[in-house]
């Protein structure tokens, strides 16, 4: 006689179909297939390794292409000044200045602004002889106030520009504009800068009588004695992806200091030229006076720095891409298998019998895979984002400073992109049911647009990164676009056409569409 144990009685309550229990069921399915967990952990390890290698690879710029074993000793690290907000800045200009103690007003009339553009690209030593007439659109000349002539110090300035109206700018990233039109003999512009306490206000006028405010800045902590005066500078101008150094020359008169004609104790100074400045200039600046007229010419820029295509220049996210795409490919495969294996084995019929709400099953699968992938990726990113920057700096590369917030956004954003991709692939797999089709679709949707965008460049690349789910990779962008800096904001320079959140929203839109379509299809179709 054998002893048999009775099967456990069914509990009184029928199996709950709440989302929590569906989630629990899907989590159990996922965690008990050892291969998937192993694959995801290996993918995380591979991502970490590839990011690490990418960051550890490049040594100081200018040393690539050396024979194996050669040690790079040339090319001193690039010096990029750091602005008051902690960002990398360009701060190279000609400054004709005077000391101002306490409050005061300086006024000048700018009667002409002309310029030349180098014939040679910015990576060739600039020379005024190899240039042709051409004023950079963001050439700047006007009045500037700064506590110190050290590069990267705080400032406020009101200026005429090449062809962007009168602007008031301060502390590199802030920009407002006023009176439109460009400076010519017949349309001169009057500029005025007023200091009262810590507040600096810029005014502009077309006749020296009626003044309008262009902008104001609150430079807290400004010392009592500051430098104030005339400046001129002229940035790289871009044709296609190539930058050409420029030089601008401005003519001022009616220079007026605190209501009195200015004295002669003005000091002309090249700011940021002649050092190991990173900003390519056409020539050093100069100034001369004749009577009441002051002519100032300068080359450079006073603006946030962009990745100037310099060798050995990196951002907080520049070593992440390859690792992420490798990880993404594995995630696509595992997410596709999580659904298609059920169809292959027939388990899907059991699943749908137990949980007739089919949309919930897909949602639960998405939540399970999405969370696991997000958590794994976040661990890798939280380590590799700071570590990658440390490695790059340790090898003498310049890495654009990124705030903790930006670094956190990059780490969380990259993980969220991978998680969203996993959820979308779950939905795609539920629609196509076959592994080969699901993975091909997943790769075509997430990896391919990015490869095409890298290969195509130009307008096609921008549209791919705007319209396809690869737009989500905008989350990796470390530096913002600045409307006041003329630059080739392209993928190869580390810029995406959409802002990080807008790009992520595009990806999420696709995820929502895929989930909705999958849910509709599953409810209409036999399993």
């Amino acid at each position, binding site marked *: 006689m054998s002893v048999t144990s009775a099967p456990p009685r069914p509990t009184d309550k029928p199996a709950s179909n709440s989302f929590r229990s569906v989630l629990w069921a899907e989590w159990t399915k996922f965690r008990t297939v050892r291969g998937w967990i192993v694959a995801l952990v290996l993918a995380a390890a591979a991502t970490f390794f590839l990011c690490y290698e990418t960051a550890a690879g490049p040594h100081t710029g200018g040393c*690539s*292409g050396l024979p194996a074993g050669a040690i790079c000793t040339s090319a001193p690290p690039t010096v990029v000044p750091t602005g008051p907000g902690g960002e990398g800045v360009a701060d190279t200009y000609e400054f004709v200045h005077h000391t101002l103690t306490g409050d005061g007003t300086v006024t000048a009339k700018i009667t002409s602004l002309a310029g030349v553009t180098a014939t040679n690209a910015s990576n060739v030593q600039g020379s005024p002889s190899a240039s042709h007439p051409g004023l950079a659109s963001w050439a700047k000349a006007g009045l500037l106030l700064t506590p110190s002539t050290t590069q990267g110090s705080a400032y406020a300035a009101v200026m005429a520009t090449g062809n962007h109206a009168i602007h008031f700018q301060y502390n590199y990233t802030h920009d407002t504009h006023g009176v439109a039109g460009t400076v010519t003999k017949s349309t001169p512009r009057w500029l005025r800068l007023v200091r009262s306490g810590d507040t600096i206000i810029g005014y502009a006028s077309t006749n020296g009588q009626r003044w309008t405010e262009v902008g104001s800045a609150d430079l807290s902590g400004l010392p009592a004695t500051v430098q104030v005066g005339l400046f001129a500078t002229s940035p790289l101008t871009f044709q296609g992806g190539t930058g050409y150094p420029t030089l601008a020359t401005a003519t001022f008169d009616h220079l007026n200091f605190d209501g009195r004609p200015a004295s002669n104790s003005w000091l002309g100074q090249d700011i940021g030229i002649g050092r190991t400045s990173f900003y390519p200039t056409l020539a050093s600046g100069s100034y001369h006076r004749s009577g009441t007229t002051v002519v100032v010419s300068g080359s450079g820029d006073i603006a946030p720095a962009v990745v100037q295509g310099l060798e050995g220049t990196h951002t907080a996210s520049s070593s992440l891409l390859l690792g992420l795409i490798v990880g993404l490919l594995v995630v696509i*495969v595992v997410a*596709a298998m999580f659904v298609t294996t059920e169809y292959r084995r027939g388990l899907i019929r059991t699943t749908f019998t137990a949980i007739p709400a089919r949309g919930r099953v897909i949602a639960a699968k998405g939540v399970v895979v999405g969370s696991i992938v997000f958590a794994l990726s976040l661990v890798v990113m939280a380590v590799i984002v700071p570590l990658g920057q440390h490695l790059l700096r340790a090898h003498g590369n310049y890495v654009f400073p990124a705030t903790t917030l930006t670094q956190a956004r990059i780490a969380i954003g990259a993980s969220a992109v991978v998680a969203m991709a996993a959820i979308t692939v779950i939905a795609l797999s539920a629609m196509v049911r076959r592994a080969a089709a699901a993975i091909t679709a997943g790769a075509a949707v997430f990896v391919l647009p990015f490869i095409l965008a890298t290969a195509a460049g130009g307008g096609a690349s921008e549209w791919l990164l705007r319209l396809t789910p690869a737009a989500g990779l905008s989350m990796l962008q470390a530096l913002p676009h600045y409307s006041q800096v003329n630059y080739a904001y392209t993928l190869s320079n580390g810029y995406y056409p959409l802002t990080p959140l807008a790009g992520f929203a595009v990806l999420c839109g696709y995820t929502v569409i895929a989930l909705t379509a999958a849910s509709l299809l599953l409810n209409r179709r036999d399993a």
Partner: protein
Amino acid sequence: MTAAVRAEWTKLRTVASTGWLLVVTVGVTVAVSAVAASVLHVNRGSPQDPTKLSLAGVQIGQALIAVLAVLAVSEEYGTGMIRVTLTAIPRRLTLLAAKAANLAGLTMLVGLIAVAGCLLAGRLILPGAGIDPAHGYELISLSHAPTLRAAAGSVLYLVFIGLLSLGVATAIRDTATSVGAVFGLLYLPPIAAQLVGDPTWRRHLEQIAPMTAGLAVQATTNLRSLPIAPWAGLGVLAAWAAVSLLVGGMVLRLRDA
């Protein structure tokens, strides 16, 4: 062997996915080439390679050939059909050879149609983008020896991609993993090459990676800037395919089904 080839041919031909995969392969390859040719903006500074441009679709079409090749093996494992197959054809290397022969024949046929379509699309569309005799470019024509080499090479390229994928799938057996592995092998090295700062290493990477080396056969101008000579590059891909089939064959022979 003949019987094995016939049996495999019957299987390949009667699976629904084969037919539409082939149609989609031709369609996608020609469509991508046509789109690439029509969105082209000619930059005066950089001379274009019209033949290579019009064969751009092969870079995408190869993915579908890879899927076709993977499915030819992995689906047999997925459904358990492989045990029947191996009972009928116990010589496993014969089986693999038969699969490879069928696949090579089929991809060659599809490759011929797709490549012909790409070149025709290029011949018709590229003059609209300013790549015409008026701007110093000849119309695409197979009587031009390098173009003929690029066309024949592209067909062989697709055949080798198919064989490479077949070997990978025979070793891995699972559809999803095999497709992922083949895609990774094809598409990741070009991305890695972009990110490698050192030109020497970049060149080495492009010389050994199956896609970048194999596609060197499509270039007709400026051959000196290529990481590897056209036929040598195709040879590298052939070596990849051979090693992959060898490993697949060995694993198939030594392992239970």
